[in-house]
């Protein structure tokens, strides 16, 4: 009876919520209050895929859904990214019959790293994808090892883990465990002998804290690592490996002769694609079908927006504040461009979800990447423009290229009235609308 009531309340709540444009976690919250173990009482689809990690969750989930749907499966997923237990409950119950049977082939869940163990106390995912564990939102998460420890109990023995072999910390989930499949990128055109970035989170072994060595790096501390002391290392056999990558041409080759063209030529996109491919292959989708869906796939989540501002063609590269790897990746993207450009960095509200004036994370970002010829000007905007200016003063970016514009509207106006060079904007969800309000969006 409680079960039926919880399902009814959740469905009704979701219906009303959609009408008034409210978030999707509240109906689940009420349902859990009525029937705390409702998730144990419903019949889930045969495939339950969870995706977690610091970066790339939403994009990976979107691509997994696209591939599985193209393969004819019905997929239910939390598109709105309500990724704690309340949101998961809403997603599950609104897609249940009144008898509590989910009408889908696949339940796909984007899961918050720290709350996964809570969300999955009543059912275990059949597949758990970990995209990576990076420095991210210290104000909520502490540090990557803390997140690792929080996530660890959710790596149930009966769940098949799909892990990023190139990230030493997330690879630790696979230590002494059989039920694992690995994805990764072999040595290729982007590989280097030295790490990039301001800090090196692979300098010491995450298992024994002895100095770790690398055969090559792809970016930051991601690459082929091994610990001479305890023998922890990137797995020798990668189940789903990309063998070739040409970021200039936008071509990625995966295992069994599959070629994927990249709509967005960022290393980020490559790892998200690899994660999505790996789990979809595990779910029985043939490689050729995956490649067909993912070829030139344009993400719909709006992380990248093209716009016009006066005579400028602009591109918004959404970068999570408090996440240096996200920033570094987008800075590298700019560095790889050729035409003269202006770069705008906006830090106005550190987070949209909570208050903080914490700016330490700026010191983890490799702003030296902006020290290249085609970057003609760097505009620093928002309330924390002076923090950005202090940080930039510790790079080799020439001071005369750096301009302070705390007022975002004024910065846009100044740009609009002057010049026609390309514009790249780096900022977070919390601040991007402050830019988008002043520009004309273009189709990607």
């Amino acid at each position, binding site marked *: 009876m409680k079960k039926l009531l919880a399902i009814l309340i959740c469905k009704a709540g979701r219906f009303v919520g959609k009408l008034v444009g409210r978030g999707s976690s509240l109906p689940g919250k009420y349902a859990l209050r009525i029937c705390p173990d409702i998730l144990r009482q419903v019949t889930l689809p045969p495939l339950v895929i969870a995706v977690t990690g610091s970066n790339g969750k939403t994009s990976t989930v979107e691509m997994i859904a696209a591939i599985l749907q193209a393969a004819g499966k019905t997929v239910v997923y939390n598109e709105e990214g309500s990724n704690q237990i309340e949101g998961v409950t809403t997603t599950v119950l609104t897609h249940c019959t009144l008898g509590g049977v989910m009408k889908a082939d696949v339940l796909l869940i984007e899961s918050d790293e720290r709350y996964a163990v809570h969300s999955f106390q009543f059912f275990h995912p059949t597949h758990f994808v970990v995209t990576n564990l990076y420095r991210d939102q210290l104000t909520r998460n*502490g540090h990557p090892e803390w997140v690792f420890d929080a996530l660890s109990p959710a790596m149930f023995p009966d769940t098949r883990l799909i892990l990023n072999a190139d990230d030493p910390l997330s690879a630790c989930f696979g230590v002494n465990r059989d039920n694992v499949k690995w994805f990764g990128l072999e040595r290729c055109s982007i590989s280097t002998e030295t790490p990039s970035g301001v800090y090196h989170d692979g300098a010491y072994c995450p298992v024994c804290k002895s100095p770790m060595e690398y055969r090559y790096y792809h970016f930051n501390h991601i690459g082929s690592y091994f610990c001479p002391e305890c023998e922890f290392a990137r797995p020798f056999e990668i189940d789903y490996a990309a063998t070739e990558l040409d970021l200039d041409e936008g071509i990625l080759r995966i295992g069994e002769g599959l070629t994927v063209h990249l709509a967005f030529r960022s290393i980020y996109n490559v790892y998200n694609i690899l994660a999505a491919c790996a789990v979809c292959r595990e779910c029985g989708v043939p490689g050729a079908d995956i490649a067909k869906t993912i070829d030139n796939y344009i993400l719909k989540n709006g992380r990248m927006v093209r716009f016009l501002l006066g005579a400028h063609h602009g591109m918004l590269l959404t970068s999570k504040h408090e996440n240096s790897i996200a920033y570094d990746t987008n800075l590298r993207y700019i560095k790889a461009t050729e035409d003269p450009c202006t770069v705008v960095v906006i830090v106005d509200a550190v987070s949209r979800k909570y208050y903080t004036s914490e700016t330490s994370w700026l*010191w983890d970002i490799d702003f030296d990447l902006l020290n290249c010829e085609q970057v003609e000007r760097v505009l620093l905007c928002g309330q924390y423009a002076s923090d950005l200016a*202090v940080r930039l003063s*510790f790079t080799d970016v020439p001071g005369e290229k750096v301009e302070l514009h705390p007022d975002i509207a004024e910065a846009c106006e100044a740009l609009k009235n002057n010049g026609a060079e390309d514009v790249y904007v780096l900022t977070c969800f919390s601040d991007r609308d402050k830019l988008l309000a002043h520009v004309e969006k273009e189709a990607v």
Partner: protein
Amino acid sequence: MELRFLHLYPDLMNLYGSWGNLAILRRHLEDMGNTVTVEELRPGDAMDFSNADFVFVGAGTERSQKAAIEDLVRFGKELRSAADDGVAMLFCGTAMQMLGQSVTDAAGTYYMGLRVGAFSSQQGRKRFVGDVYGHTDLYEEPVVGFMNSCTLVSGIVTPLVTKLSLGYGNEKEQGPEGFRKNNVFASELTGPLLVKNPPLLRRVISAIYDRRGEALPEELPIYRMEEEAYATACRELLARLETE
């Protein structure tokens, strides 16, 4: 002056842009006409603090901290005598805990500390996080920062931040934060504490001059952007404080 800095465990204890502390201190001292050399020391290296003008250890994860502490206790005696002798030091984040008698991790494992201070640290499974606004006995202006710790530090009678109006201190919310002894400065406030707090940076500079017996120039360099960033944090946190 020719100044010798020791940066201990630069790639092990390097969370949250801790390196900014060393970078900004170096810049200011160089702009005052000094020459600064920075020696990086890693686990296993021999360490001699007697000729150092400044010893710096940044923040690290709890696991990295254990690796650092197990290495540094080899030189506990030398570090204590340098501290007694007035060598300027800054220990940030989890590095501060190393200066105490002991650190006990969440599982109950005990680690001997460097015993510079008569305090001890107990780590747990919950993190205390939040912006911090407070005052120190060292100067008039406020101290700003961000606390992110899973550790209760008890027994400190000479804190760095003597009074907190916002955020977590060593043992409790709005309790005192950090540790200070002679010219040893320590704080669990994350990241580039000296960048965020120009008055504290000037205090460390003054400690370095003191130890050398050199007179501090009457006017220290002031950088407009650094002061503005500090003013922004002070204004924001004060406004936050008033709404709470």
